[in-house]
């Protein structure tokens, strides 16, 4: 397929006894923004370094633009990397940093100067050539690092948690900027992060990684609304997790009975039979609140006591304890401000549509 910029074909990498990347495959289409999302230590950096060429896979192959990269050194791959701490050269000016790759390719000085100037203009730093790296703000350094890579017009840009070191406000800002830059340049981005909001906001496709393997690859919407494994359901977005046994099950719904005796209904993911050990996930925003349980029909209904209020602007939530079993639920407060006057200790009814909760069989490994 000609329109795939990156293909990773059954690649494994082992550090001593530890399998950091485990028989992993992936394909990234031209011009897309692909994120790899996973907890710390799951092997994201290892995978990225395999693609960049700093590590050789023990088995499998990496193809970039259709060409096998076996034995191709990092300085010969059509790939550039933005490092976690950016790794700008402090001994060089901004212009020299951005022009470094071109100079290494033997481009003529006037051409380098022109390309560097154009590039700096495109990332919003016109005329910054003469500045020293330590004169730049965090966000500006970020742009220089990206300009330094993009000026070489790589097939693929790899980014290793480049926003990790920034403070929250700047990170939010750079997130949007990064997305715009990618759309503007049309370069294929492979972005790794442990921050799910970064992955969801930025990407066309996200791979959720755990212990050296991909749990699920899909669009942000798919990952959020149709998680295929308990790990994805638990890792992407907030979720209420309930464990128990399947009391009843058919192809369309499962009735889970928890150890405390709470019964909830959910949509099954994969085949589930009565008696299986199962795990159900209910998103906070799926749960509706009501002063009177009757309002919630025909959903399954529960009554809870307000344990605490978690105010966070538009993401405000309330922590409820189900009255009969003491099971804890996190419920999003509606944007309408309807339940804004809820107090701790108050009783409210809550319920949710079984089709919007998902249930997995717990496989013991």
């Amino acid at each position, binding site marked *: 397929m000609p329109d795939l910029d990156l293909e990773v074909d059954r690649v494994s990498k082992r550090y001593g006894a530890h399998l950091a990347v485990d028989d992993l495959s992936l394909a990234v289409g031209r011009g897309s923004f692909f994120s790899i999302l996973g907890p710390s230590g799951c092997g994201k950096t290892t995978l990225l370094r395999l693609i960049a060429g700093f590590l050789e896979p023990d088995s499998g192959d990496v193809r970039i633009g259709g060409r096998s990269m076996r034995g191709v050194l990092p*300085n010969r791959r059509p*790939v550039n990397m933005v490092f976690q701490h950016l*790794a700008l*050269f402090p*001994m060089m000016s901004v212009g020299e940093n951005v022009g*470094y790759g071109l100079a*290494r390719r033997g481009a003529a000085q006037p051409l380098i100067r022109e390309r560097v100037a154009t590039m700096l203009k495109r990332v919003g730093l016109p005329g910054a050539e003469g500045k020293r790296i330590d004169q730049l703000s965090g966000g500006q350094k970020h742009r220089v690092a990206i300009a*330094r890579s993009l000026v070489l017009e790589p097939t693929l840009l790899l980014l290793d948690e480049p926003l990790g070191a920034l403070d929250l406000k700047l990170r939010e800002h750079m997130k949007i900027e990064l997305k715009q830059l990618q759309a503007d340049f049309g370069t294929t981005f492979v972005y790794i992060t442990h921050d799910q909001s970064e992955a969801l906001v930025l990407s066309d496709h996200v791979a959720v990684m755990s212990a050296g393997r991909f749990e699920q690859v899909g669009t942000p919407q798919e990952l959020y609304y149709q998680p295929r494994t308990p790990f994805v359901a638990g890792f992407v977005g907030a979720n209420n997790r309930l464990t128990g046994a399947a009391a009843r099950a058919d192809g369309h719904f499962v009735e889970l009975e928890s150890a405390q005796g709470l019964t909830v209904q959910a949509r099954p993911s994969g085949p589930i039979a009565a008696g299986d050990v199962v795990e159900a996930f209910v998103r906070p925003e799926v749960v509706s609140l009501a002063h009177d349980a009757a309002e919630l029909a025909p959903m399954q209904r529960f009554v809870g006591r307000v344990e605490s209020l978690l105010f966070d602007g538009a993401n405000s939530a309330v922590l409820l304890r189900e009255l009969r079993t003491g099971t804890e639920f996190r419920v999003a407060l509606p944007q309408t401000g309807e339940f804004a006057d809820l107090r701790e200790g108050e009783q409210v009814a809550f319920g949710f549509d079984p089709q919007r909760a998902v249930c997995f069989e717990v496989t013991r490994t």
Partner: protein
Amino acid sequence: MTATASADLAAPRTRLALFLLFAPALIWLLGLIVLPHVDLAALSLRARVAPRTYEFSFANYRTFIDEPLYWHTFVRTAAMSIIATACTLLIAFPTAWYIVKIARGQAKSMLLVLCLIPFWVSETVRTLGWMILLRESGVVPHFLVALGITAQPVELLYHDATILVGLVYTSLLFMIVPLANALESLDDALIEAAYDLGGNAWSILRQIVIPHAAPGIAAGSIVVFMLTLGNYLTPTLLGGKNSLWFTEQIYAQFITRFNWEQGAAFGFLLLMLSTAIVWLGLAVSGQRFGDVMRRA
């Protein structure tokens, strides 16, 4: 209000404390460095016209210029010291690189200790060790014969190369330590980034590693150069009569000839030489003395 008052009260006392704190350093500086040098300068600028009568004169310096042996030794010492410093740098750089960037865990500390071990033995004994190895009836010539490389045992002492080996050996640690310090602070990601952007080993060394390590290189080179220039034992023992090291001339004037005026002039010339070369080296490499010494 009260705070400023107490601060005012404290000020003279702090100043006194500060003065007392620096007093030993000041006494040391004045008593052991400045005063002897002032005396040395005065000594070098007088000539004996009659027993116990001296007058101001540049005669001692003129002797230096007029006598080819003296300035020949002087130039030779400077050149050999520069060569020894360069050799030390060439050997120390890969060593420091290996210790800092390649060795891991225990091997790292082991290697540093290994560099330090020779310094548990006094310089005299170390140099004598070289003599035992290199003299005609010594270990190395014997081995060369046994291996069939030379027909007869060769004398390996009393060559310029032998002096250089000895000097490099004594100086190595003083180069490795500042270099290792400088390389330690170089982020590996910078090297990887340069490599990723198309750099090769040589261009990365030249554009990233050396500029970063420059203060360490300068610090190590200054220390090694000064130690080498002022070394007496190693050139004398390993070079014998042929060594022609300037410190030997100073020693001869002071001790053998009892011509303190001439010795003082030579001492002063050596001081000027080292100052001039260090200054030149810093100017050429674009380093500032303060930055360099902070890294040393």
